[in-house]
């Protein structure tokens, strides 16, 4: 290279890109063969393998050529979306890219093994790009998985907090599963809105399905009771299990504010009493 060191970096990049482009087909076949050997391509048709591998190969070379990763980011997101939907594992995707990285790396050694200085220059140029692409893909996958998990949490949350009217002015709020702050907040909001819409006077919060209650959850429950009272409704907590009751007492929650009744039946009876309902067993 006659232009000296300043242009050296750019030249080596150019040279690498043209090498990668020249050997595109043989390198890509090598890559696919290695991935097939490691069983990373399970569940993909041969056309898919063909087009995907070509796109990934070209996208990577494109990153090296232009120094811009937008194409890679965009493609990684799309791939993550499809991958997660089709149940591809992270191992398949990341493993596949690691293989591609090896294939590229090996070819560098093959081209420059005579010239150590050039080889190290080529590695200096190539390695950061390869690492960055791997990071982008891994991140895209994690983000996509997190998005799916959030979506499912959302769905579970919506399913799991019904507010039921069992009599005039009486609501039952059965809580199933763990309560975290976000869910507690949502529960309270739903309850308050239901109190307003149904003009409820008594609300029975049934926690039979709550496996554990810590001080945070206990405080949320107390807040819910207070908030319902501000809207003129009395809250009754039912279904506190022996374990939960013991835990609440030992962490020092102000348990008397709970208006607790043993089980849901008792809660409804207590609510009937407050509202002045009487159950009469008629003749057959």
């Amino acid at each position, binding site marked *: 290279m006659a232009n000296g060191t300043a242009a050296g970096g750019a030249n080596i990049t150019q040279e690498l890109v043209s090498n990668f482009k020249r050997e595109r087909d043989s390198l890509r076949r090598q890559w696919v063969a290695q991935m097939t050997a490691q069983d990373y391509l399970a569940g993909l048709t041969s056309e898919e393998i063909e087009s995907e591998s070509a796109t990934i190969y070209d996208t990577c070379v494109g990153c090296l050529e232009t120094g811009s990763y937008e194409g890679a980011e965009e493609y990684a997101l799309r791939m993550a979306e499809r991958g997660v939907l089709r149940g591809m594992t992270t191992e398949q995707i990341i493993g596949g890219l690691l293989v591609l990285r090896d294939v590229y790396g090996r070819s560098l050694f093959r081209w420059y093994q005579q010239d150590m200085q050039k080889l190290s220059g080529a590695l200096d140029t190539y390695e950061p790009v390869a690492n960055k692409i791997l990071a982008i893909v891994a991140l895209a996958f994690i983000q996509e998985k997190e998005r799916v998990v959030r979506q499912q949490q959302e769905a579970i949350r919506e399913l799991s907090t019904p507010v039921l009217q069992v009599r005039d002015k009486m609501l039952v709020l059965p809580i199933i599963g763990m309560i975290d702050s976000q869910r507690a*907040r949502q529960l*309270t*909001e739903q309850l*308050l*809105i239901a*109190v*307003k819409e149904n*003009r409820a006077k008594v609300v029975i919060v049934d926690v039979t399905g709550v496996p554990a209650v810590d001080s945070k959850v206990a405080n949320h429950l107390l*807040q*819910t009771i*207070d*908030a*319902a*009272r*501000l*809207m*003129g*409704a009395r809250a009754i907590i039912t279904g506190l299990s022996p374990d939960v009751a013991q835990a609440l007492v030992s962490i020092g929650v102000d348990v008397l504010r709970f208006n607790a009744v043993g089980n849901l039946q008792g809660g409804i009876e207590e609510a009937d009493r407050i509202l002045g309902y009487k159950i009469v067993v008629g003749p057959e």
Partner: protein
Amino acid sequence: MRVPILKQHDFLIASVQVGLIDAEWQQLRDDLSRKVGDYRSFGVIVDISSLDVLDSYATRTLRSIAYIAALRGAKTVIVGIQPDVAYSMVRLGLTLENIETALDLEDGLSILSAARKGGAGPE
């Protein structure tokens, strides 16, 4: 804005329509504590259903209205606390403990009427 106070038989009704500044809350407190005596009212209803926020000063004033009225022989019901307001109040620890609350004016009136009937008076 000075909150109008309506006399409805034995009860006084103050409906707060817009957010008030601290001085206006004081004004409401002073007006109510005076009128409870003037009209020898049995009960006071403060309707805050139009408010979508309630700060700690307003909450304290509502509490003092209730306590002052109690000392002057009247029962107070705070009505119309909206869901959002109720939730933010309890998160701030403002719970209006020992003070009667009701969903809306209608429920507030029936609470006061029930209390009136429970008393020694005729009717």
